[in-house]
């Protein structure tokens, strides 16, 4: 039964647009799916490989601007941003990996934190290429209705989920977790840690970038403050995974559901709505104190990155 859970959820989501939900609810669902993709992508690097990044806004923003610049300068559909992302974000990840992945632990986190900010400031100032703080706007959005956006992000999310599942049950997945648990031991067991950390970063970066390119198409407007911010993107990404459960398949999805709904709810509260970041901070502290493995992780009590087939079938 549990084996078919992803299929059931996927099928359930497929019929959601037929239910004639309000445009606002569809918007929330699309955001949940988009955040699931970003969370799952971060989870590859931060959860499984153990390289905590505070700069995923860089990848998200690069993806969004790839789509935006293709539309604005080359005057082709911003949807080309999604395939273009694969190339651009791989290149970015290789550069970032070469510089940052030689650092460990907190130093890596700090380097990525700087990366996000560097990208934001650079984008603000490269006015010829990016329009700076004026941002890029798509004059005619592809669809007024949200149905197709929903299906597109649903398929991206399902594809990401499947890809991670395949990766984590292969040699790559074992290597990622080995690197997280003990980098020196992994190295002496014949794992080229630099190489596999770079692969992990590329996977994570490309998937985050795809979510960014989708965001450009869906929202129709981006500027550096929207796609490169430290709090709204980088930190929220970490929170999505921490709340849901790092290094679990469902953690980022559960985290995305909770975080998006919570953000909407808190923002609509009178008086304290503007302080939603403060409230998120309090939530993060509570999560770290009481459910350090996240909701999915501590529900299982044991953080088991690999489930043996025997157990799953019994």
């Amino acid at each position, binding site marked *: 039964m549990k084996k078919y859970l992803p299929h059931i959820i996927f099928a359930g989501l497929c019929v959601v647009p037929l239910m004639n939900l309000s445009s606002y609810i569809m918007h929330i669902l699309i955001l949940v799916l988009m955040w699931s993709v970003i969370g799952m992508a971060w989870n590859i690097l931060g959860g499984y490989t153990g390289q905590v990044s505070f700069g995923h806004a860089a990848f998200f923003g690069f993806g969004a601007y790839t789509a935006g610049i293709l539309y604005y300068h080359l005057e082709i559909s911003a949807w080309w941003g999604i395939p273009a992302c694969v190339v651009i974000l791989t290149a970015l990840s290789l550069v970032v990996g070469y510089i940052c992945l030689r650092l460990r632990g907190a130093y890596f986190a700090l380097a990525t934190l700087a990366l996000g900010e560097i990208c934001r400031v650079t984008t603000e100032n490269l006015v010829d290429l990016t329009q700076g703080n004026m941002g890029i706007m798509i004059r005619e959005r592809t669809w007024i209705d949200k149905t197709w956006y929903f299906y597109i992000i649903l398929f991206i999310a399902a594809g990401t989920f499947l890809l991670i599942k395949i990766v984590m*049950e*292969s*040699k790559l997945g*074992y*290597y990622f*977790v*080995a690197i997280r*648990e*003990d980098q*020196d*031991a*992994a*190295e*002496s*067991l*014949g*794992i*080229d*840690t630099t190489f596999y950390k770079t692969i992990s970063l590329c996977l994570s970066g490309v998937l985050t970038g795809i979510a960014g390119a989708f965001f450009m198409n869906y929202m129709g407007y981006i500027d550096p403050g929207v796609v490169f911010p430290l709090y709204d993107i980088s930190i929220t990404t970490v929170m999505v995974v921490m709340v849901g459960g790092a290094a679990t398949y469902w953690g980022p999805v559960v985290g995305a559901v909770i975080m998006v709904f919570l953000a909407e709810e808190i923002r609509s509260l009178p008086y304290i709505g503007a302080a939603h970041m403060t409230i998120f901070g309090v939530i993060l502290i509570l999560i770290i104190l009481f459910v350090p493995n996240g909701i999915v992780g501590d529900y299982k009590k*044991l*953080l*088991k*990155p*690999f489930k*043996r087939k025997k*157990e799953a079938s019994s």
Partner: protein
Amino acid sequence: MSLIEVKNVSKQFGGLAALTDVSFVLNKDEILGLIGPNGAGKTTMFNVINGFYRPTKGDVLLNGKRVSNLRPHVLCKLGVARTFQVVRPLQRMSTLDNVIASAFIRTKSKAEAEKVSLEVLQFTGLSDDINVLSKGLPLGKRKRLEIARALATRPEIILLDEAFAGLNPTEINEQIEIVQKIRTEKGITILIIEHHMKVIMAVSDRIVVLNYGQKIAEGTPSEIGHNPVVIEAYLGEEQSA
């Protein structure tokens, strides 16, 4: 025939000389013991052979080829596996997953890696613990898991760093059996660091003694047992204590 040749290796950390001009040879199919008082440079020697450190001076040769500038994972591919003095299991992975992760180096599919791993775990007597998370294993089993992981990479040479430390007498006897089986059944050459004199005398063919980073003696266990320099530097201390 020499598998590993350590040639005039020196290693300095800042002004501190951890190893000074150490040379020795590890022959095929032998068990070579590396002993010395605390701080003599034994683990540093391992780290140099294994590729974690580059020697300040001198070379390490593997089958006649210079390997002193290669990284540990490359050496592992060339057939040099090691265990750590302070055991370093991949904690939040099960025992079996620990071994599978290291078996992947010479296997293509997961099924194949799993087969190799189960065989190695049986060899080291861990078959009953395959689904236990490795941080939950007692020390004796964790030491064996270290050996199992090293064996799963199908090495030609295995470097054992204090594989006996902290074990009780029963566990020591089991461990001695495993070490001897590694040579007789798998034909793997062993370089072993050990503090436990009874063990090292029992398992080694030859012994190299380090003191303050220098080689002070080399020979068969009985020669070493009677060498006055060694007794003064090392055994004597233990006898008087």
